[in-house]
């Protein structure tokens, strides 16, 4: 079975028991609200990058919080067919309800986390960056001459969804890592192990996407 080829992360999906206080935090964290829906009650947030949304906040159906998984951008529609053909597929290929549309498939990993793949989303134009000046003056090299740093108080604008970390039982660790590396074009970046037991453990291995033409991203 060929691997699903991903090129970046799209968004995460959370349910909150108190959506009002959750969304106030998300605004203070630096997300920009882009769409609100009812039934289910959802708020979609974007960053300054080209993804139509990077975070979905939804009203929890009960009094608990829930993480509903992350979604990866795949290279082609064929990757969705690969995902849908797997035994761990739970949805088949369906239309995405979020801004920008597209088609998506959701799987369950060996410990029950949902992991989704999306293709054909309509991307958005980047938002202007709130950075006045990138140049740094060093003791021996001062490129910023007569230009001043003047900032405003406020949230740190989010640009994109970069990575996520899941905690799995030590007994399932090797199986889960193998599941993801067999499923997706991910390779090891770094591995840490427990010096006493020799077992691989948190916070690694961290993995990264292998893209074409020797270019890789974390």
């Amino acid at each position, binding site marked *: 079975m060929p691997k699903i080829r991903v090129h970046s992360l799209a968004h995460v999906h959370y349910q909150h028991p108190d959506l009002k206080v959750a969304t106030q935090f998300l605004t203070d964290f630096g997300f920009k609200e882009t769409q609100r829906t009812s039934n289910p009650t959802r708020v979609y947030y974007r960053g300054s990058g080209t993804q139509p949304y990077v975070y979905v906040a939804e009203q929890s159906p009960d009094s608990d919080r829930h993480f509903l998984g992350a979604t990866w951008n795949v290279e082609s529609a064929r990757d969705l067919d690969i995902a849908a053909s797997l035994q761990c597929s739970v949805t088949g290929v369906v239309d995405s309800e979020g801004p920008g549309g597209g088609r998506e498939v959701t799987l369950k990993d060996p410990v029950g986390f949902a992991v989704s793949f999306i293709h054909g989303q309509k991307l958005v134009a980047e938002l202007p960056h709130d950075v006045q000046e990138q140049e740094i003056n060093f003791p021996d090299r001062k490129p910023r001459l007569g230009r001043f*740093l003047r900032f405003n108080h406020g949230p740190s604008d*989010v640009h994109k969804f970069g990575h996520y970390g899941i905690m799995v039982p030590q007994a399932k660790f090797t199986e889960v890592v193998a599941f993801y590396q067999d499923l997706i074009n991910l390779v090891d*970046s*770094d591995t840490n192990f*427990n010096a006493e037991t020799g077992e691989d453990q948190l*916070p690694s291995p961290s993995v990264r996407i292998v893209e074409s033409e020797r*270019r890789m991203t974390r």
Partner: protein
Amino acid sequence: MIHHSSFEVQNMDTQLLGHYWLQEKGYRNAWGVGRHVLGSQIFDYWFDESGFILEHYSDGDMLNSDSIPTREAAGKDTLHIWGPNVPIAFLTAQAPERAVQPPDIVTAEAAKGIAPEFLQEAVL
């Protein structure tokens, strides 16, 4: 369970402005600001109001297919090179009950809601 989701921000200045914005609002910091070793990124982790951890990061490493995977024993200096020692609340992803509000030097208001058991540093 989910440990955290991480979102890129422009640079260290905007990251620190965002850090103090969240602190002034009384939100609960999970760990940061600091500089990771693996990946090199500047990190800043926060508990949202439901208790999930979200991260701001900037200035991470770029790797390509020539990059050789590393493998080392976990230890005191594998997680970060500068910044606060890693709190137990971060390692366990268990949010403290109350927000910790810093003292306000303008109104001379004392710090509020400090829960010392959650401010303990993990011993690595």
